[in-house]
Structures are given as structure tokens and as C-alpha cells.
């Protein structure tokens, strides 16, 4: 059995579930495994309907405390389920939720785990997975010592490609309880959106984004001026936010905003996976970077391999000239 742990937030299923199911189908075909899923929630009916034709079996753990994600509850319930059902493989999204319980589950059940994988196959009675290292500069093949094993799967690694395998999955409702004293140890309080400074980069037609290549905070002025010249909005990668040079609502990427402007100009951005996932659907992408092997060039339409501090002033001057004509 391959078990997919369903992720939901604010009462809706996340896209990652269907990516996980796509991988589960691929792996199940290669070894003749059943595909099962587990839904932990306070009102799981609509979630059941959404996945029922893609799995053989659905385990439902219903608890009013599960309306929102709580890692401690997930760990408690999933440990019991996995011990009872003995799936050969457990698939979890490599997301803010998934990483909050998957490694914990692995250590408490003494199971191998490979996190942030982008592909996997059975290799005899082991799992061989592929993942990136050194921020995407290298890839690695990693092997588990045995199965059962846990994998957390990078978002966007599998395009949703699912054919129904049953007309209706067998639904098994589990009545499990967690000690109320344990509940007190980890309590969900609520969600908050990142504070906004009034700029919504997702509405911008033109975005000029900067990354580590900007080197110093004072260099931002140069880019800001250029952005204004072409009617663009300034945005950035995570390191710029971490350094406190720009507010959080300017961040493009998986932990920031996903943008699809008409024009995206990436300056000094190498193109970490997390950034690319937030801007790759832009209509036209121009990237300026010193490193010809920077992954940003794999999504850019036009690339310039050069020092941005040399190109930018010349480009700003050229734009001014064009506007005068």
C-alpha cells in the first residue's frame, strides 16, 4: 500500500495532493501496490469526493480539533494508522505543513525518510529518490535502507496526470483518540497573512526583481529608479527580505507571492527553485546574471550574462532616450 497524506488549508484541498497522487499511481503500477489516502479533518466529506476515484482506499480520521492543521495531532494519529495498516510507502508534501510532521513521524516510528524529493522509484525493497543539493547546483540519488519509508515531495515536481482507478474508493472511518493532556502541548491559535505595506505585486504588469546579486542595500535605489522609468514595481527574492532591505510583501517565491506579470525582469537572481516557482508563468522574462549556469536562464526568454551594475545604467539611459523620441 502507498499512503498519501492529504493536505488542506482554510477548508480547501491543496494542489500538492494531486501531484502526490500522480506519483503514487506511477509507483503503484510498477509494483502492483494499492493506493490509499488518509484525510485528517473536522469535515472531510468534500475532500473524500475529490479524491475517491483516484484511490483504492480512504482512511478518514475525523476530529473537531483537525479543522486546522496541528502537527502534534497529525503525528499522534498517523503513527497509529501507519502501525496498524503498514503501508510500504508514505507520501507527504514537502510544504510548510508536511515538513512540520513528516521527519517527526519518521523518527518516532523508526522509519527512513527522504525529504524534498522530485522523483522516486522502487528499487527492490527499497526506495531510490532524486533530490537537489547545494541550492540546486547538484542533484543526488538517495536510497532508503528499507521499506516502509516516508518521502516528502517537492511541489510542482509532478504535473497532475490522473486517471480514475476506481469508481468509488472504500472508505474506512477510524475512531482514534488523543489524550487531552497531549492536546495542550501543541495548540493551533490561528493564521495571519503577512503584513502588507499597500503594494500588491501580484497586480503589477511589470516587475523588476532583485536578488543577492544586488550586493548592498544602497544599490536598491538604482533599481528602484529603473523600475519607475519603465512603470515597473520593485520585487525581490527571499535573501533581500531576510536582510530587511525590502518588506515581506515584495517577495516573489513559494514563501512569498506568485506573480504572472506581462514582463518580469530578474536582476542578479540565480533562480533558486523557491523563487522560480513564484514567477515562471510570467509572460516575458528577462534575466541579467553573471553566472551563465544560473538556473534563472532555464525559465527566462531573454538572458544577459553580465554584471548588472554595468548593464543597468546603460539600459536606463537607453530607455530614457527611447521615451524622448
Amino acid at each position, binding site marked *: 500500500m502507498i499512503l498519501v497524506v492529504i493536505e488542506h488549508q482554510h477548508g480547501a484541498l491543496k494542489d500538492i495532493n494531486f501531484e502526490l497522487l500522480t506519483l503514487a499511481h506511477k509507483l503503484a503500477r510498477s509494483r502492483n501496490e494499492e493506493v490509499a489516502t488518509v484525510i485528517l479533518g473536522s469535515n472531510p466529506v468534500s475532500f473524500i469526493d475529490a479524491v475517491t476515484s483516484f484511490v483504492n482506499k480512504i482512511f478518514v480520521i475525523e476530529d473537531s480539533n483537525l479543522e486546522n492543521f496541528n502537527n502534534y495531532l497529525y503525528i499522534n494519529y498517523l503513527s497509529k494508522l501507519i502501525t496498524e495498516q503498514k503501508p510500504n510507502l508514505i507520501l507527504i508534501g514537502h510544504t510548510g505543513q508536511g515538513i512540520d510532521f513528516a521527519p517527526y513521524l519518521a523518527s518516532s516510528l523508526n522509519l527512513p525518510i527522504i525529504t524534498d524529493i522530485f522523483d522516486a522509484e522502487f528499487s527492490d525493497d527499497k526506495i531510490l529518490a532524486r533530490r537537489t543539493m547545494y541550492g540546486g547546483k547538484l542533484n543526488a540519488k538517495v536510497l532508503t535502507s528499507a521499506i516502509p519509508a516516508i518521502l516528502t515531495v517537492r511541489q510542482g515536481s509532478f504535473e497532475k496526470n490522473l486517471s480514475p482507478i476506481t469508481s468509488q474508493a472504500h472508505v474506512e472511518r477510524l475512531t482514534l483518540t488523543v489524550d487531552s493532556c497531549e492536546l495542550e502541548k501543541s495548540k493551533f491559535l490561528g493564521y495571519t497573512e503577512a503584513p502588507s505595506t499597500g503594494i500588491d505585486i501580484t497586480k503589477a504588469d511589470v516587475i523588476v526583481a532583485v536578488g543577492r546579486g544586488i550586493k548592498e542595500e544602497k544599490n536598491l535605489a538604482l533599481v528602484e529608479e529603473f523600475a519607475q522609468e519603465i*512603470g515597473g514595481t520593485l520585487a525581490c527574492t527571499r535573501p533581500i527580505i531576510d536582510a530587511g532591505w525590502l518588506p515581506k510583501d515584495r517577495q516573489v517565491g*513559494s514563501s512569498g507571492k506568485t506573480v504572472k506579470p506581462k514582463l518580469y525582469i530578474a536582476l542578479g537572481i540565480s533562480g533558486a527553485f523557491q523563487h522560480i516557482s513564484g514567477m515562471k508563468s510570467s509572460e516575458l522574462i528577462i534575466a541579467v546574471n553573471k553566472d551563465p549556469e544560473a538556473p534563472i536562464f532555464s525559465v527566462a526568454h531573454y538572458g544577459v550574462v553580465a554584471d548588472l551594475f554595468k548593464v543597468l545604467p546603460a539600459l536606463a539611459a537607453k530607455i530614457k532616450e527611447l521615451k524622448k523620441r
Partner: protein
Amino acid sequence: MEIFVCLKLVPNTQDTEVRIDSSKRDILKVRLSYTINEADDYALEAALQLKEKVGGQITVITVGEAQADEMLRMALAKGADQAIRLSDEVFTNFRYDPLTIAYLLAKAISQYKYDLILTGAIASDDGYSAVGPALAGFLKIPSAAYVTYLELIDNQRLKVSRELEGGLLENKELALPCVLSIQTGINKPRYASILGIKRASSKPLTVLNAGQLNVNQKDLKMFIDLVEMYYPEIVSKAQIISGNEEEISEKLALIIKEKVGL
């Protein structure tokens, strides 16, 4: 408050090319400098700020060779009180297995009194993000990953915010002791002062081997292992614009004008 901060020494690969060595299981180390993992530096700063507020003791701990001592001394110079390095020939086989690393840290930390354990959210080399939550699993205490805010409610409870996708934060309350994996950007890591560096040399740095951790070789289970590294296939779809700055600018300006007008 007794705070442990788990640190990792990593190669500085931000602005360098990373090449695979002949074993295919490691990278070429020549000319690489080593540094504290970025997220761990934020975790250390979070511990230092907590100690300044409520008092207590900070222990920094790592699994690694003597090469890591400089990183530990720097943490002591910033204000940590003692350092522990877990080092044994048998440990090196497990360098690609975050669960075993977490197990060793759990074995060491559980020999002491602890209220709070901090790790970085992700290591810049292998990027597993697994040690913090796995450590909590071995110690059977609550945990939170990707923490971007923390505040002590009293000496038994903590309020944290965790980062989810799209900038959404999950707020929760945790009972101590617990493990938090700290995300970059949560604070502004300090530099060590000259006085701090002087003081650091007299602070204790203890090296513990497998025997001192009560770990037998047969207790150590290899959960996962790295088979080989390979280079990603870069499918560059970009049309590269070349020339001098003048020529590049001319072409870019026209592309921009055509797309969005000016």
C-alpha cells in the same frame, strides 16, 4: 532557561561553482571555505535574545570534526556558554542521514537538562530540513518547523509563528520543552565582539565520542544513504543577448518597449 542550539558547519557555496569529486559521493573541497549554516546563525541569535530577556544558559552543539571548533568558538564569542562537539569515526558514515544525526543529538542533549532546542530550518548543503522535527520525535516533545517568530508566554509555554506557503503564518502555542527549527530572516544575527572573542577561549568546549554518548555501533541504523551526486541538466531556453553594454541595452530596451510600451 536551558537552551540548546544545534549548529552545522557547511561549505560556502553561494557564489562558487560546486563540482563533484571522483567518488561521486562528495564535492571537491579544495578552495572552499567553511561557515556556520545560515539558518543556524539565526537560530543562535534567537537563543541569545531569549537569554538576554529571561536569563539562562546556552549550549551550542554540533556533529562534526575538529574543523567545526572555529564555528563553535564563534558561537561562544557571541554569547553561548558552552559547546559540545559529537565526534567519532563511526559517525562520518552517517553524514547524509539526517535521522541518525538527529538521533545522536538526542542522545547527547538528553544527558542534560533542557527547556528549549533550536535548529536552523534548512541546511544550505543537503537541504533536508529534517533534523529539528526528527530530533523532537526522538525526544518525544512538541516541535514547530520554519519558525519566524517566537515569544515566551511564561516559563512553561511559548508562542510561535510558522511560515507556510504564500507568506501565510500559522500561529501556535507550544509547551516547553520543545524543538523549534528557525527560519532565516527572523532576526538580525550579531557579530562577535572583540571582548566576546577573548572570553570565548576560556569557555568549555567538550568533545564526546560514541562511547561517551552510550551509543554502540549496532545502535546506529543507516536510514538513508546517498548513492551518487550528478549534475542537473540545465535546459537553458533563454535567448542570450550578447555584445557590449551599449548593444545589450539597445536590444533590451526595444524588447521592453515592444512588450509593455514606454
